[in-house]
């Protein structure tokens, strides 16, 4: 089963073009969607998750026309939105049972077992009878993860899922997700490049509503091989370098600034060659969106 997105466009009433002619094919496994805030990730996610209609374009999931048959998609969908709320005066167990029922798990025994299992997996079992209003941000996020995984979804969309999670919980979640991802389409929207590089076998970068890059993380990463150079500079010189060279990123290491430059040739002997990372590729795509190829 594949998710095929064709020529998807959406313009908001205020004139903002949230999606511009996006086409993607996503197969089983983890698919990473990278992009800056406001790039259109959430709009794309919501559109796939049937919460929003595009102006033009189509989405198919196997035999299902997502835009025309939202009810069918919802039956196999697990969705963790970026922002969500809960009924504050209901317990996690109650709420999750409620969602399980809405997801069609009508058999009470099965429902309870599934809910308990997921509560254990997301580490909320001990507090399952506490009101959701008393949950901390991280706990609410884990609750959100649990509800998305309920009912054996075939398509999982997780929008910034690790926000608010501590590193341990983040790992735990990714373990869970990659476990599931083997037989499922999992779309992971994030702005953390490392997550995509470690978890996803396919990815796309979007910016300003357009698809900037699409391919396997390793290929995207390697596309810059031999073209990246770095140098430690004085902070005050950054402007000068930016004017002269194609500086795609700058970061600090032990309090000193290091810039990364994209160039087919070494700009100067003071520059050292750099093994490209996905982050470099991402920065390059963001820095030069117009030059970017659609496919790696």
């Amino acid at each position, binding site marked *: 089963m594949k998710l095929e997105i064709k020529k998807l466009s959406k313009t908001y009433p205020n004139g903002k073009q949230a999606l511009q002619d996006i086409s993607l094919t996503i197969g089983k496994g983890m698919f990473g969607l990278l992009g800056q805030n406001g790039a259109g990730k959430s709009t794309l996610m*919501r559109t796939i*998750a*049937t*919460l*929003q*209609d595009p102006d033009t374009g189509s989405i198919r999931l196997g035999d299902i026309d997502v835009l025309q048959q939202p*009810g069918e998609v*919802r*039956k196999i*969908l697990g*969705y963790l*939105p*970026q*922002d*969500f*709320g*809960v*009924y*504050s*005066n*209901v317990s996690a167990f*109650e709420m999750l049972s*409620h*969602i*399980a*029922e*809405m*997801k*069609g*798990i*009508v*058999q009470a025994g*099965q*429902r309870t*077992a*599934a809910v308990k*299992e997921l509560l*254990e*997996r997301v*580490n909320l079992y*001990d*507090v399952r009878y*506490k009101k959701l209003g*008393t*949950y*901390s941000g*991280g*706990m609410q996020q884990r609750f*959100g993860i649990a*509800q998305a*995984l309920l*009912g*054996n979804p075939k398509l999982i969309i997780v929008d910034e899922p690790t926000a608010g999670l501590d590193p*341990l919980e983040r*790992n*735990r979640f990714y*373990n*869970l997700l990659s*476990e*599931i991802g083997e037989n499922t389409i999992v779309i992971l929207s994030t702005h953390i490049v490392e997550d995509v590089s470690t978890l996803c076998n396919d990815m796309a970068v979007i910016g300003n509503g357009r698809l900037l890059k699409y391919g396997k993380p390793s290929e995207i990463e390697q596309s810059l091989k031999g073209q990246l150079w770095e140098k430690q500079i004085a902070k005050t010189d950054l402007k000068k370098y930016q004017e002269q060279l194609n500086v795609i990123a700058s970061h600090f290491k032990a309090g000193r600034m290091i810039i990364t430059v994209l160039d087919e040739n070494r700009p100067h002997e003071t520059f050292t060659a750099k093994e490209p990372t996905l982050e470099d590729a991402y920065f390059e795509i963001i820095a030069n969106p117009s030059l970017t190829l659609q496919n790696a």
Partner: protein
Amino acid sequence: MFSAIFSFEVRQQFRKPFTWIFLLLMFAQGIYYMRHSGEFFSADQTYANAPVVMYTVLAGIGYISFIVTALLGGASLTKDLEYRTSSLLYTTRADQFSFFWGRYAGSAFILLLLNLAYLAGIVLYSFLPVPNLGPLSLSALAKGILLILLPNTFVLYTFCFAVASLTRSGKSAYLVVLFAMLFMIFGVSLHDMGIHHPLSILGDPTAFTVLLTQLEHLSPAEKNAYSPDFKGLLLYNRIIWVAIGVIVLIIARIKYSFKNFIAHAERKTKKKLDDAASYTAPVFHEQALRSTTRSFSTGSHWKKVGSLAWLEFKTVTRPTGFRIFLVILLIFYVCYIALWQQQYYSAAPTLPVTVEVTGVTLALSFYFLMFIIINTGELLFKNQSSGFWTIADALPLPSWVTVLSKVFAMTGIALLLSAFLMVLGITVQSVKGYYNFQPGIYLNELFIRWTPKYIVYILLTTFIAGITASRYTTHGIAVIFLVISIVLHELDVIEQNRFNFMFSPGSGMNTDMNGNGIFTTAHAWYMLYWLSLSLALLAIALWVWQRGIPKSLFARMRKQQKLHPVLLLLFLGGMTSFVLCGNKIYRTVNIQNRFETNEEERMSSVLYEKKYKWLENAPQPLIQHIALDLDLYPEKRALEYRTVLSLKNQSESGIDTLHIEWMDFSEIHSLSASGSKLTLLNKDGEMRHSQYLLEQPLQPGDSLILSVEGSMKYEGFTNDDPQKELTFNGSFLPLDIIPFMGYDERRELKENRYREIYGLPKLAARLPDTTDPFASRRLFASAQANRISYTFNISTQADQRIVAPGILQKEWTENGRNHFRFVSELPGVFDFHILSARYAVKEATVNTGGNVKKISLYYHPGHPYNAEHFMASAKEALLFLESILGPYPYQQVCIAERPRYDEDLFAYENVMVLPENHGWIADIRRQEDLDYLRYITAKLMAEQYMRRSDISRTQGYPVITKSIPGYLALLQLAHFYGEASLKDHLIKNHEDYLKGRGSEKNEEPVLIKVDDEADYVSEKKGAYILYRLAQMAGAEKVNGAIAGFLEEAMHSPQQPVNAGLFYEKLKAAAGDEHNAFLQSAFETRSVYQPDKK
């Protein structure tokens, strides 16, 4: 810094939709309360926008203002805790002083603005097409704002603000307003119960009770020019509450510090579960997640509706806000049933019978419906407001399942509300020592009458939510719709229930004797009608229900394009049922039961007068004897009759045409005259008037036997008329069933205001002058007979009894029906009723100076409470009146109960009839509360005496039939309780007089020319004047004049006498020194003041 905080607060409030919605609501409330208060005072010819109305509206504040004050005052400081902005804001350069006062002033400014909208509503009311508007008094408005509105706003807001700040909880502001409301209700309730304790008056922080105390005895003119003096209780009330407000505010300021608030916020955060607390070592799972079977069948969806409804029900009922809201409503309810209950003549309370307790639901229905609307709106948008929609809307659950589960959850809330009302009602009854709970009435009133109304409003709110897809717009539209619908109903702009959503006939017309009568069926049809419409609207709501990112209605419609077949079916089914029910209602109410709007009723009266006024003085034969065979079928609300009338031409000219009229819903099947052929000349079905030509003119002094057969039947139901003449239990059939001969002046339009509009001459008086040659020869009771004799054979269904005047000669059962034969004991006047009901009977005899009189009591078996006291009161009245007026003219006194469809008391021949709420359910466990029973029995019995006099149907006759009996009843009370204890009665009497003056449609008649439409003059003023004269000149003189008049009026005249004779006798008996008093009282419109000593 202060200005930065203040202006930010104001700007931020302006951006909230809540502010604008409440602005609208406050405006609507201003108009609604003016109307409401104007109605309250309308009884006294006070302008609909008189200063008294404005003052009470300003002091009454209104429930919406209370809520707004709590919202603004409560959240002003505490919102930083709620939104967790305290740590951001408290670490800026803002100092505590500026912060406290900036926030205080900012929210206060918004509150003042909202109050300005309330004022705008009040002012606008003076420019609406409302009857009886006076000039808008700007000075009253200004003074009201200064003395009432501003101090009230300050006090309530400051309390809310300060208490919320001290407790660091916005919710505590709701408790503050709750208590303020309770103090106010308490003061008003005590006032209504006649307890004017300074503490209860000063304890009302709104000063509403102070105003009530000042207003109660004002004349209409004084009310129209009312301007409260800023002294006494009003001054103290204002000073006390403003001072307390200032003190509380200072304390709050002293106690306020950023540190306190932050500390509180931290304590609150600690209540959140700690991540670490739930931390366990990571578990790595080898296995995949367990697989589950899933079902998306329609059956499983319906199951989900049930389980989701239960979850939603719990989420609605769990929050504290809901509970506070519910508790406030329930406290209102308890206050109403516990404190505000009907009192009639005196201070004797009414027993908390279930009909009275459940009747309170009508008074509070506006608030219950608001409660339903707001909770429905909140629940429907709960996913949006909680943010859960991003998950919920992507779940494989059709929208209809979600929406229906919420509708069912709210239905559960409506049932819960009704169940609470029932439990509280029963609790209050028990606390008052009343244990006849009648669960059937609770079930009927709370669950069958009111719950469906809540449900149609739940569905309407769902429809609005579906269309608007916006929480606040839904609240706003639904609440404004409710307010407008109720106002239009109260203003009589929408008279027909079928045009006003949710309305059904019979609210507040539940009676113990007749239950809901015809309104049970009516209510069922109307509810089916509104429910059908609501379901059709629900189909539309489901069709365009918002899912996912908000879209315009048009976009949603375009996306859905066509209705799902089931929704289409629901819509078409609902609309079809709505149309069919509407048609059934229209045919039943408008066609079958000939509903007329007020305007149409007036038009018919005008038409009748224009067409037949020429007959006014045309001679018609008078009835001398009636033989009536009457078969009543209460279960079918039908009757058949055969009557033989002995007629005589008592005029000086021959009569060649009989003008026959008949009662509405009755038919004359045959009409024949012995010895003279009748030829129908003309039949005017619309006006119910026929003309028959007599073969031989009936010459003066000649007699004629007229035989009539006819029937009457009510069918179906009406818009609001209980058709009390013929009911399932407690029929009260007037003698009008016997065809009327001639022109019936009772059918004329009496209100000069409308007469002028329709081109009729204004009435100078509503009764003919005593010198009118035609009228002065007719007895007061009717134009178609003087004294008559009669024989009645009446049958009714097996479980009912008949009560009729005269001697019950025989009663028997035949063919499963009860038969009764009554014959007249003395020649009576042509004006009485026949009753049929399931009665319990109690009988006793009393020996009065050698004469044995029988007293029979016919009462509803469910009202046995005061039977013994009624008997005792009747005995006392008998003994007392015989001592003044001579022997009681009849062998037997009957006292009968009838359903409470109006407040009218009747006395005719030997029968007195009282509605079920008059005396039958009075709580007379205290001896002194017996006074009402004594008063009414003495008064009605005295009326029976006075109806023995032959007085003409001319101006002033009610002095004899009403004033004298009223006076004698007062005298009897003074006899039992002493003059001092009569004070309350006289004050109440005076209030009723003032109210009567206010509702006078034309011009107040002077006492000596009083007519039968001005009971407030004859019964209230007249009775008091005679009583006062008795105090001044001696009761024996007044009594002597009455006895002398009665003697003369009963025995001497060739021609009836009039009130003038009594007046002369009274003047003669009282002596010259009281002439001036009598002249002023009888011949001028002087407003009497009771002697308060």
